[in-house]
């Protein structure tokens, strides 16, 4: 088990990053910090999927004149490129909502907002 984890230490790093993001979302009270935690979780997923496509001694999948196999898999990179843009979109919308909440209620602390109801 430990040897398998050590072989896949790149994936373990993603798991650690994911848990950090999860901790921030649960434990922090400030809404902006919660969305930062969400972004850290997204980064963990992105790094995990990109790491899946890596191959030992792989080169970028650009078929120039001096390209040499083996190539890193292009599919995870392409999927994550679109995923990053969707992450930016959700973050932008979330921050807009935070701005509106602050204008309406004067606070972005989750527990104070809960008391107001």
């Amino acid at each position: 088990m430990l040897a398998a984890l050590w072989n896949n230490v790149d994936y373990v790093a993603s798991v650690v990053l994911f848990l950090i993001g999860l901790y921030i979302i649960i434990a922090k009270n400030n809404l902006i910090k919660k969305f930062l935690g969400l972004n850290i979780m997204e980064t963990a997923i992105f790094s995990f999927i990109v790491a899946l496509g890596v191959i030992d001694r792989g080169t970028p999948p650009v078929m120039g004149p001096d390209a040499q196999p083996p190539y890193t898999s292009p599919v995870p990179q392409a999927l994550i490129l679109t995923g990053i843009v969707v992450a930016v979109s959700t973050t932008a919308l979330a921050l807009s909502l935070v701005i509106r909440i602050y204008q309406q209620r004067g606070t972005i602390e989750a527990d104070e907002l809960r008391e107001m109801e």
Partner: protein
Amino acid sequence: MKKALVIALLIIAAIPLLIGVAALPPHGDADTPVQTHVSARYLEKGVEEARTVNIVTAVILNYRGIDTNGEVTVIFTALAASFAVLLPAAMARRAASAESDEAPPVSMVVLFVTRLLAPFIALFALYVMLHGHSSPGGGFQGGAILGGLFVALSIVLGAEKVEPLLKSPFAPWLRIAAPLAFVAMGVFGALLTGFYLGFPQQEALRWASEAMVLIIEIGIGVGGAMIFATLFAEMEAQ
């Protein structure tokens, strides 16, 4: 008490993740499913079929073009939703008070360096955008660099320096440039090949295939940069 509960939850979440990660094939292995199925096919036939040397661009714009088409619509929708959330308050504020905010004072060094680097950043963004088919890069990356330049300029030089661009009559068209370029090229491809976003394969129509990739890249880059700049300006104005 709460902290202990959170840590217990994290441990419970960590166990299945770590077990799953330990069961994956070793990192960097050449025989994993990621490397053997579609990836191998794309790497083998990509240059011939998609006419782009960079296979990542081939996957994004050609093999999975319809996916990317939906995805540029998502970022435009995010802009529209952000407008819908923020505009009513901004309009009320604008009606209530004439503009009184001035750009905060900025250090001379920051001002000088930003002014010095701005043209080079813009040139690099254009290079990344237009060279995406034959080297690492592409519309999204170039658009992000250009959008970052707009954000830096509006922080350092003041928002009113970028405003002429965002208020110009072309601005709405530039914001929707990415979906528009995609749909236009999709219909163009449909006229040539019979399929939406079909890239012609014949040797005689090679120019059309390359032009379609280039136009989509420029559309994504310009549209993405405008959307980033607009989102930033909209939030800064609050």
